[in-house]
């Protein structure tokens, strides 16, 4: 069931629709609630999202595959007790797994080239083209299912042992993760135009955020 969710989210990223249910924020909450703890799903998904926000999948370079990786991270975090250690290690597995996922996307794209070449070929047959296109989508779904299943297997094998020795509480775990995320937010700011071009709006937002959070 969880692996099927990973397959569906793998499709959303590129092959089908791009409704962005594959974003870590969304995938984390869906996977967390399937595992029985949407709040932990949100925590894992939103912190992974902070890292992935800066990515722009332009043209076909290698980019992390966030959907299946977030499903792995959120599910493993909940299944292994949602302790600070479980969350931290499942989260880092999710981040690394998104890189592995990106690598499998590249393999999938090579496979798609072969499928199109083999099935559709130079003949220009519409029926063959439709079969090739469907095969490419089906195989991408299978890739997502497999990627999620292997990630889950690794997670439930590795995380419980490592989580038991985790030395930080939840606040300091968040500190570590957020310090790394700040690099990604800096990259995002640069993509928005950065300093000094977007200085006034960024500072205005910063002040609004500080005051708003203080009042709330």
């Amino acid at each position, binding site marked *: 069931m969880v692996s099927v969710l990973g397959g569906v989210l793998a499709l959303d990223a590129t092959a*089908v*629709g*791009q*409704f*962005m*249910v594959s974003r870590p*924020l*969304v995938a984390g909450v869906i996977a967390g609630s399937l595992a029985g703890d*949407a709040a932990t799903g*949100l925590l894992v998904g*939103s912190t992974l999202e*902070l*890292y992935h926000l800066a990515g722009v999948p332009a043209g076909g370079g290698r980019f992390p595959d966030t959907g299946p990786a977030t499903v792995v991270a959120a599910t493993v975090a909940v299944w292994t007790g949602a302790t600070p*250690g479980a969350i*931290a*290690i499942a989260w*880092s597995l999710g*981040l690394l797994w998104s*890189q592995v996922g990106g690598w499998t996307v590249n393999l999938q794209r090579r496979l*798609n080239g072969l499928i*199109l070449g083999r099935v559709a070929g130079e*003949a*220009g047959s*519409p029926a063959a*083209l439709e079969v*090739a296109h469907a095969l*490419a*989508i089906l195989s991408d779904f299978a890739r997502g299912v497999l990627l999620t299943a292997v990630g889950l297997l690794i997670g439930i094998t590795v995380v419980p042992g490592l989580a038991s*020795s985790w*030395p930080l509480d939840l*606040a*300091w775990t968040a*500190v*570590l*993760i*957020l*310090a*790394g995320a*700040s*690099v990604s*937010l*800096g*990259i*995002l*700011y640069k*993509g*928005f*135009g*950065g300093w000094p071009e*977007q200085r006034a*709006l*960024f500072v*205005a*937002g*910063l*002040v609004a*955020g*500080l005051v*708003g*959070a203080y009042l709330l």
Partner: protein
Amino acid sequence: MSLLVTSARLRTFLRTFLIQGSWNYRSLIGGGLAYTLLPMLRAKFRGEPEQLHSAVRRHVQAFNAHPYLSGIATGAVVRLEEEGADPEMIGRFKDAIRGSLGSLGDGLIWAGFRPLVLLLALMVGWLGAPPYVVIGLFLILYNIGHLWLRVWSFLIGLQGGHRVVERLREADLPGLTRKTLAAGSLALGALVGVVVMDGRSLGAGFWPWLLVSAVGFALGHRVGYAAWRPTAVLTALAVLALSILGLA
């Protein structure tokens, strides 16, 4: 317009949601474009299999576009094919527009609109909204823009044909991108403010954390995307190293 043409156009539009289904390094989304155009091509070349096969061969050639804006090319090619335009001109049109549809969409959507809506949703989440409200807000806001753009793209392509450039210029997507990036800067500042205020709960650890995060932010801003993968991998490895050290 006959029912057959309307139905073929509608099915062609729906297939734009699958245009990236066979993304590959040989033709990028060329196969996907040909697949998307098939309902229209079948209607146009009914009873002319050789013509149909020839059109498919032309359209499986390399093509790329942002998926949400791919409807512009799809709609325009539908119009050109229906009018019986010169195949060489259609090919040159596709070559010339593909790069623009990539860079316009990448700038407006991937670099602007998507992170903007995500930042808003993250901020709402950070302020304590329930998980389903957070993702509901993101999915609804984002997909209103997404679906509107898909429909608009296909319609202006269909109406404009190879003169779609005029409609695109009127729409001023670069201007819209500029506004989206500005709004993104505002939202990013606000999220950073909210997170910093939340960090006060760290007590004595607050200032060192703020300092490290500020240095990280400046580093990301200076180095750009090249800093992303090393940071992500290093942070993940640091977490794993800490837990292994804890074991020892």
